[in-house]
């Protein structure tokens, strides 16, 4: 009997009128967990019932605790007929199952009905008494912490990063069961909500078990997705990164741990197996001996590799030691071997993280991606979802081999996605091939020395750019130059990655959002013919998306992309490709060349003129962009740099494995062969259109920046105002003249207009930056395109933004070194803001444009509340007293945002897709929020049409997320993501349905101003380690 769940129903408010005669409601509540149900008494004739129930106690297995949601149903008692349901609340009790998170769930939850939306609120208290269970064969994994955040959470330290965990569960979709024909839409929706809740609980438990098996205690970068496969079922799948995390109590407590490796350095012989991981015994031993006994060379590395693709693992330092420093070579090789062995044991050396502890990421190879088109079939045995598992395993293998080809042993920033249309499904996976530091992959006590030696050779800020593959044995044609920063190692001319910009990277100027958008028409077809058609189109799409990205990057005068996410969506009669990334200028990489236009028919004079006109326009745009994004790299003498015209380095591999012949693998080289990629040949009108469309992208209005990464490169003085939002647009294409070009233009306009609308709407926040801009495209019907955007607007201080790039570079270097010591948590810019050298403007943020009138209004409300008890008539309150209370009212408001529930009004809960809150410190993680809602209507017109319906629904979803967070005792959701927003309409029948799935991490944060005492003490305490940190890095 491992757990006792206790639930108390306190009260309800704002209930709907259920009895027309009396305009009142006789409400009672059913509390259900598993198969046990309790009921409260009926509270007659009230819209604000006070049940104040006893504690309902459920005695359950912890397996059930993890899987099952707590179901609370509010009903209206009816003496003569069946009781009417008012609505439901599902509460995920998972956060109560691990000790450090929430201890109690208590608060007002919106009562939700899938047909009517939110109908009042209910106050519930939930507690769990958990007994320790020492059974080794248990099926539960209570205690494993889950984080959506794709970096090491702020108040934790990563001891070991174990690696990839994945799981999927399948079931029949209740919407497609026979019973659905006879039950009400409400019953069907609720069955679906309940099932998905149950499935995600089960999934989380199973992943937890895997983590325990790996001896981890947490999953970071947990991403759970649903595939609504229609007839063939419902798949819930999740990936994440297993870690062993240590809670940081105070910075000082961590220091000895950090210093200890260097002390032990001499005692540890280099040939000792540095990998205490039990899984790594056996096969890796001979390899390691070699590592120690011989100086690194090609020969041994060939021995170690089992296939030809591993050739590129040859340590390049074998040849390059002259430039890398004498002792650097062997150590680096040793490191490589060690890392490889640590990773070799794993089936998939993948990491869903996008930001890493300093020193973790050694080199970045480039983006690796794989796609596969599959035909869906009914899943016959839900307990053995072998086909789906096999599909994903296949894709992951592909990714792994791509990474190997790039000389990398790991993939970071890894993610998976699907796009389904009828019975065809595109599975996609992508990530960034990388070489990692083994320090975090094993037990943290032994290695230290290696890593420190390594860092001596790696100048901060450019190390990750250095190529991991062998120069003489390159997997694809690329142009290499010596690093512009350290001049010792080779770097590519362009770098594409799916991760966030490493914090120690040296960036010149600011970054910007770069998008490639593409549509391709496709004939309508059935089943296999359809799958084949899609498979044939995919490589072309991929190629064009890459070309567009590359051209736009050049047009911006930048040389690297971070956070690249390519989404290919399949519809009945078209394919859509949308790639988003944040372009930056990395100081370590060469200056990008311009774009040359060449005509195919040079004899025509006017044509020539046109071409030169275009060329001029392009050159002007590049110059303008360089100015806009403040890209002014220092001039470098040309002697060590290779040819001034860079050659293409862009690469990606594509897997086309059709369902009928999945063994056949075609690789596509996207590197444009030997041709110079940046000469655009205009040979027909299509090409001309392409060039035009390049130039139509309008930069954001002044004062606005946008990026799809966590933070904007080049801005590091955020103020505390944030506004998270979701915007959805659906356009209907006129079915008549659908050409690829019209389609492209429509799609392009849709995205551009959407961005313009966002800039306009958020203009009051200027200067601000749209961060983590996340576009999702779906094709709900033949002629409909739906684009969903979620992002957060963050204000920043303009004055401080004007600091010179040089100062920024110095600062970032400095920060990198101090952060190295300081906690190994992620050194986001805001951390440094707490230092006294960057005083935070304390009051400015919360109300930027509220007039004094508004201030007075707020105080009126405060005043009225105060007055509530002291009703006195006739006495005329003068405005003077109102004014006097005004500052107090404002003060209350500000405090409330930090400490919710202190006041009677609703506490503010912030939501952000980022992993941090500007100007604040996250003090506690309360658990994962993972919610799934369905909303349906049969009175679409009455609810304000499709816009009104969806607007209200999304607002309700936000409200329910906030309510859950507040009930856990939190005041913010970080790493918030809307993973799914499936919208279907049938205006003729006046009906619409929408499914939304959101997730995030519930946290408690405290404003930095409140932590002032702590932060002023911190630098003093850190003084000592900061010095040693400096020694290590230089």
């Amino acid at each position, binding site marked *: 009997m491992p757990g006792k769940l206790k639930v108390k129903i306190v009260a309800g*408010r*704002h209930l709907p009128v259920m009895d027309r005669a009396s305009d009142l409601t006789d409400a009672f509540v059913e509390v259900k967990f598993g198969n046990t149900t309790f009921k409260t008494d009926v509270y007659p004739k009230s819209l604000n019932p006070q049940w104040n129930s006893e504690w309902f106690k459920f005695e359950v297995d912890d397996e059930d605790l993890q899987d099952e949601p707590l179901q609370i149903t509010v009903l209206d008692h009816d003496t003569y007929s069946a009781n009417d349901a008012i609505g439901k609340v599902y509460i995920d009790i998972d956060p109560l199952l691990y000790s450090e998170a929430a201890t109690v769930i208590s608060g*007002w939850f919106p009562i939700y009905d899938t047909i009517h939306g*939110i109908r009042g609120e209910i106050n519930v208290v939930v507690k769990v008494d958990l007994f320790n269970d020492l059974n080794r064969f248990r099926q539960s994994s209570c205690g494993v912490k889950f984080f959506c955040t794709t970096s090491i959470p702020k108040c934790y330290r990563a001891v070991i990063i174990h690696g990839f965990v994945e799981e999927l569960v399948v079931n029949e979709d209740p919407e497609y069961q026979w019973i659905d024909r006879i039950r009400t839409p409400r019953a069907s929706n609720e069955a679906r909500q309940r099932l998905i809740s149950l499935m995600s609980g089960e999934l989380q438990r199973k992943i937890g078990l895997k983590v325990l098996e790996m001896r981890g205690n947490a999953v970071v970068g947990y991403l759970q997705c649903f595939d609504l496969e229609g007839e063939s079922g419902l798949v819930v799948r999740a990936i994440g990164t297993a870690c062993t995390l240590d809670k940081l109590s105070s910075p000082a407590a961590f220091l000895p741990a950090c210093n200890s490796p260097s002390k032990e350095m001499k005692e540890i012989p280099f040939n000792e197996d540095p990998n205490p991981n039990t899984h790594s015994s056996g096969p890796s031993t001979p390899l390691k001996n070699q590592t120690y006994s011989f100086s690194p060379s090609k020969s041994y590395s060939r021995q170690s590799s089992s296939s030809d693709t591993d050739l590129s693992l040859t340590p390049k330092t074998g040849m390059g030691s002259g430039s890398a420093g004498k002792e650097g070579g062997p150590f680096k090789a040793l490191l490589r071997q060690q890392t490889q062995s640590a990773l070799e044991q794993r089936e998939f050396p993948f990491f869903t993280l996008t930001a890493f502890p300093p020193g973790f990421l050694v080199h970045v190879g480039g983006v690796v991606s794989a796609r596969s088109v599959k035909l869906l079939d009914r899943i016959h045995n839900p307990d053995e979802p072998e086909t789906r598992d096999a599909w994903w395993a296949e894709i992951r293998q592909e990714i792994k081999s791509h990474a190997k080809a790039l000389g990398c042993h790991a993939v970071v920033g890894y993610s998976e996605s699907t796009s389904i249309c009828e019975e065809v499904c595109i599975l996609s996976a992508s990530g960034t091939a990388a070489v990692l530091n083994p320090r975090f992959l094993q037990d943290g006590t032994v290695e230290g020395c290696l890593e420190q030696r390594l860092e001596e050779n790696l100048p901060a800020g450019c190390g990750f750019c250095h190529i991991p593959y062998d120069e003489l044995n390159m997997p694809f044609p690329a142009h290499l130059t010596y690093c512009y920063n350290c001049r010792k190692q080779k770097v590519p001319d362009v770098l594409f990655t799916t991760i966030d910009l490493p914090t120690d990277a040296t960036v010149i100027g600011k970054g910007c959002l770069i998008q490639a958008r593409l549509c391709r028409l496709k004939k309508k077809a059935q089943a296999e013919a359809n799958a084949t058609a899609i498979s044939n189109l995919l490589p072309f799409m991929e190629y064009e998306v890459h070309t567009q990205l590359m051209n736009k990057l050049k047009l911006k005068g930048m040389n690297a992309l971070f956070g690249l996410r390519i989404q290919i969506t399949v519809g009945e009669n078209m394919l859509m490709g949308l790639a988003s990334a944040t372009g930056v200028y990395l100081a370590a990489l060469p200056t990008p060349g311009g774009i040359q236009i060449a005509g195919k028919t040079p004899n025509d004079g006017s044509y020539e003129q046109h071409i030169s006109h275009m060329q001029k326009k392009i050159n002007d745009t590049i110059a303008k962009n360089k100015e806009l994004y403040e890209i002014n790299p220092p001039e470098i003498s040309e002697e060590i740099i290779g040819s001034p015209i860079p050659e293409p380095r862009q690469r990606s591999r594509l897997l086309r494995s059709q369902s009928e012949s999945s063994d056949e693998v075609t690789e596509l080289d996207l590197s444009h062969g030997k041709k110079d990629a940046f000469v655009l040949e205009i040979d027909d009108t299509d090409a001309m259109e392409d060039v035009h469309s390049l130039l139509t992208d309008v930069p954001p*209005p002044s004062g606005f920046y946008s990026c799809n990464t966590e933070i904007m490169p080049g801005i590091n003085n955020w103020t505390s105002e944030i*506004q*998270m*939002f979701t*915007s*959805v*647009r*659906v*356009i*209907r294409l*006129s079915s008549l003249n659908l050409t690829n070009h019209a389609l492209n233009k*429509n799609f392009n306009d849709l995205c551009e*207009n959407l961005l*313009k*609308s*966002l*800039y*306009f*709407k958020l203009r009051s926040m200027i200067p601000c930056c749209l961060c983590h801009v996340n576009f999702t495209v779906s094709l709900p019907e033949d002629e409909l395109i739906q684009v969903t955007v979620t992002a957060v607007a963050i204000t920043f201080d303009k004055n401080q933004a004007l600091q010179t790039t040089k100062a920024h570079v110095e600062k970032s270097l400095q920060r990198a070194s101090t952060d190295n010591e300081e906690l190994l948590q992620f050194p986001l810019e805001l951390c440094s803001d707490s230092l006294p050298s960057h005083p935070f403007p304390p009051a400015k943020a*919360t*109300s930027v444009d*509220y007039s004094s009138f*508004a*201030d007075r*209004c*707020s105080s*009126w*409300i*405060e005043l*009225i509340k105060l*007055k509530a008890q002291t*009703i*006195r*008539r*006739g006495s*005329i309150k003068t*405005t003077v007293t*109102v004014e006097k209370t005004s500052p107090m009212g*404002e003060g209350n*408001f500000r405090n409330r945002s930090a400490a919710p529930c202190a006041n009677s*009004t*609703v506490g*503010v*809960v912030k*939501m952000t897709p980022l992993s941090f809150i500007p100007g604040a410190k996250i003090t506690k993680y309360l658990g994962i929020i993972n919610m799934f809602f369905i909303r349906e209507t049969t009175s679409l017109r009455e609810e*304000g049409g499709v*816009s*009104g319906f*969806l*607007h209200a629904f*999304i*607002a*309700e979803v936000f*409200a329910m997320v906030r*309510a859950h967070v507040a009930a856990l005792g939190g005041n913010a959701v970080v790493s918030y993501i809307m993973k799914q927003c499936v*919208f279907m309409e049938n205006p003729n029948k006046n009906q619409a349905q929408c499914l939304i799935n959101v997730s995030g991490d519930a946290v408690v944060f405290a404003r930095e101003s409140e932590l002032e005492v702590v932060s002023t003490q911190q630098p003093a305490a850190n003084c000592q380690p900061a010095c040693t940190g400096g020694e290590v890095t230089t």
Partner: protein
Amino acid sequence: MTSELDIFVGNTTLIDEDVYRLWLDGYSVGDAVALRVRSGILEQTGATAAVLQSDTMDHYRTFHMLERLLHAPPKLLHQLIYQIPPSRQALLIERYYAFDEAFVREVLGKKLSKGTKKDLDDISTKTGITLKSCRRQFDNFKRVFKVVEEMRGSLVDNVQQHFLLSDRLARDYAAIVFFANNRFETGKKKLQYLSFGDFAFCAELMIQNWTLGAVDSQVDDMDMDLDKEFLQDLKELKVLVADKDLLDLHKSLVCTALRGKLGVFSEMEANFKNLSRGLVNVATKLTHNKDVRDLFVDLVEKAPGPLGPLHGHPPWLPPAPLS
């Protein structure tokens, strides 16, 4: 290419004050867009008309969804669906319940019934205020009236508590409710020169001094109805005109009280007898409902004297209670 669906939902609900005003003023989305274009917002922000249209639609939809909550402002404070900073909530409420001077003068003292609502068309044409805005204002009056009608305690406080209005606006609503309840005639041509502020001032003094609540705050604390006994007692005031001694005494007391405080003091002093007679005649008739309704008409007709309106202080109003 047509936009089927176009929405923006923020975690904090965005409120654009300018669009809110246009919405409150009853403009259609099209008119509102045209007005915004005229304000030069496109040039300032570099936005396109399509962006403006989408933005306006979006705000209108938000306001429409908030309207239900604005009908019971405490609900707006406690609801969970829209996260709005308290200062913005107060602004929404205050602006929603704000009314036009021109409109309130048309309906002040009228019964807030369906009949009056039918006349809103005419009022709209007459005042130039959109019918939609007229309806909102009328419904606001009616809603406040319904809520506080049967309540005990201070009228102003009741309004303030249940509608979370500012002090000034709550007092205005108290006046509107008080006038509507007692059906004072204010629409006659003779009364046109009086502003709503003038009437509100009267209402406040009447509530303080003439109602049931004013007489005995313990027993029947009602601010809405005039104290019948008090009106009956006013009949006794005849002596102030009939008895010469009392007239003189009254005059000297009034003059002492007002000396130096009134710009037109000398005229008042000279005309005191006429003024006093007029006022007393009005006062003694107040036992009939019809005469109560015509109170302000009678005051202007029978006790105007040479005195014009003085700084919003009607000259015929007794400066101090006589009882």
